[in-house]
């Protein structure tokens, strides 16, 4: 290959996409599709809520105190998740384990509080069949909970990798797991006012 050809190849080779790690760009595409799924739910909910009067009365029965507590739990878990990512970058082996463990614990706390809420609502007689508001409430929070559960599973696998010491070769996985975790947090940031505060 001659020098001209070399130069031609190099000149045209650097475009923006190739500098983004494949895992990260793929995860963002995945999040884009997730935004459309939750966006679909939120669209339906907002339109129906606008169309029907009387949802305020139903919405008054959800427990905003527990909802707010859960918001704080999830926001804090986002902090511990980003600190886990930070620990990977800083080479802090103990920090990764601690913060991943804390993130998992906070995630589980969120699910437990959500379970307590569900239990109280069922005890009061509010089920997914008690009207459209409740159908949306249980569907959206339920799916969000499933996403969180998936995040917990991912973080647990990361924690196992951290305990075995294998995570250092694939440190980007903590960032990718974190991106997903923060996304689940962002979804909740919108679900909380939609379902609890209006």
């Amino acid at each position: 290959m001659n020098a001209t050809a070399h130069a031609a190849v190099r000149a045209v080779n650097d475009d923006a996409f190739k500098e983004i790690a494949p895992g990260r760009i793929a995860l963002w595409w995945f999040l884009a599709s997730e935004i459309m799924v939750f966006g679909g739910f939120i669209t339906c909910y907002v339109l129906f809520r606008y169309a029907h009067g009387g949802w305020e009365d139903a919405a008054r029965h959800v427990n905003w105190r527990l909802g707010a507590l859960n918001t704080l739990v999830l926001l804090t878990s986002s902090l511990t998740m980003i600190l886990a990512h930070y620990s990977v970058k800083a080479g802090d082996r103990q920090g990764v384990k601690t913060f991943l463990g804390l993130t998992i614990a906070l995630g589980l706390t969120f699910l437990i509080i959500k379970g307590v809420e569900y239990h109280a609502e069922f005890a009061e007689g509010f089920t997914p069949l008690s009207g459209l508001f409740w159908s949306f409430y249980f569907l959206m929070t339920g799916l969000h909970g499933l996403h969180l559960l998936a995040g917990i599973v991912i973080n647990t696998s990361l924690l196992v990798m951290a305990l075995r010491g294998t995570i250092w070769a694939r440190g980007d996985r903590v960032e990718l797991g974190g991106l997903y975790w923060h996304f689940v947090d962002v979804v909740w940031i919108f679900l909380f006012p939609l379902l609890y505060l209006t």
Partner: protein
Amino acid sequence: MGAKPLGRAANRGQIGKGNTEVATATPAEIKIGPTHEEHPGFWRSYVFSVDHKVIGKQYLGLSLFMALIGGAAAYLIRWQLAWPETYVPGWGYVEPQQYNAIITMHGTIMIFFVAMPFVLGAFGNYLIPLMVGADDMAFPRLNMMSFWTLAAGSTVLIASFFVPAGPAAGGWTAYAPLSARPIYTGVTWGQNLWIVAVAIEFASFLMGGINFLTTALNLRAPGMTLWRLPMLVWMELIAAVLFLLSVGPLIAGSFMLLLDRVAGTGFFVPDKGGDPLLWQHLFWFFGHPEVYVVGLPGFGIMMEIIPVFSRKPLYGYKTIVWGSLAAGVLSFVVWAHHMFVSGMDPRLATPFSITTILISVPFAIMVFSMLATLWGGRIELTTPMLFAVGGLATFIIGGVTGIFLGSAGLDVYLHGTYFVVAHFHYTLMPMVFFGGFAGLYYWFPKMFGRMMNETLGKVHFFFTFICFNCVFIPLFMAGVAGNPRRIYELSSYDFLKPAQHLHVIATIATLGLLAGQVPFVINFFMSMWKGREAGRNPWLANTLEWCTDSPPPHGNFSEPVMVYRDPYEYGNPDAPKDWMAQNEPPAEPAPQPQAGGLRLKGTGTV
């Protein structure tokens, strides 16, 4: 930045870039992925393979198998419409309930389980890594999972044939409330399984689409800029983005529909406060981009084939890319033209009419670019070329009738008739089957190392082309005459009796169309073992897949690939030969040293 190392190792090695800086990882520690085992064994090689070429063939096999079921459904539908309530050879009598189920399954199978695995799954998987010069998909294991997820979805759908009360019978669009309550169609588990199967299919193609996007954006060989991508890769990319961005609301909707059925919620049930129209909106918000998801790859295949057999560069490369991107954007704002007769707010009709007529512009650009590519070329009517050109010709009829249907006033009359049936078959058949068969005849030598038989191929083409037109031109006429679609027995209406002969013609042609596929099946299997050895580049084509062995080895390219030129440099009078492969280095330091010196005029704008 210095010259990059090549292939997968290079891309894995770049993990440390940007804000994913991992202090302790060196490229040597990073595993290169599971693709390059020495002796993977039978299961790993053919069933749970992570090789994109094997997975592409698996998609191909699955789609052709499902096409058999979809084709059999077409046979039953057509027989019933031509000779109502007579004995259908090989089946028996078609009951009214069965008719609804068969028509639903025909649509569902053909769109979700034939068209998508065929033009996206098979060609996308097989060709994207080869065409961009990568050794495999970005995520080979995810790729394997996409296929097996789709296989699971197909299994669920086929299982729904065998549950009590039969498969779904609410149409392939599953309009609520028809689909939301079992009492309306009499179908219980069939519809639930339908929702589950389609949702699994969505999950499969979401994974697949993300893989396509990452592969085509990140794993391109050095020199393979975006503007040097073969058109098929562009089309698969745009299709993947459209699918990814449009399917979300329908996934949400399918959760809601499933809950309406199994839990008794009322999202789409009017007497519980729900809104059936919302389902139609969610469905078509996905459904229209979906038309382009299955359509654009077929166009991409034609655009690969037409320059090769005209020995001319593809006319207007950049214009086609921008045009198809514009079509992609517009496809998100045309969905309500499927709903002009649904009782939606009439104020939505005018804007959606306008966008619908607008979207014909980018498609006209693509069609005219292909015609301009043919113009003055040295045209060689091989079987792939026949299918590509035949598909182009038939698509034009589908596209033009789409403009009729796009105007809301006319659509109110035509929407419930066979005109619409003929229209969407005229758009989907050319893009999926003509495009798909063209691609199959064209890349068969690459996939299996042997040529397909030209005589049988031409018999297949002429049977398919003539019979296809004889099926659906009468249906246009029947539609204009007012024949309503989705009706079990047309002959029970006196005013439709004068048009009954059109249905008889269409059905006889359908039998011919189905029989015309027999030469293809024979050809396919015969050529696989007995065909002429193909060699690396039987068509003298430029794109990268032709510069490796047929079939390509594990890892695709035995030596690193460098790309120096555009994909369609055919018939350049200044060049030493008729075709210039993309990886062919410039022969000499050119007299004029500009890098663009060898670019062809045909790649400019229209």
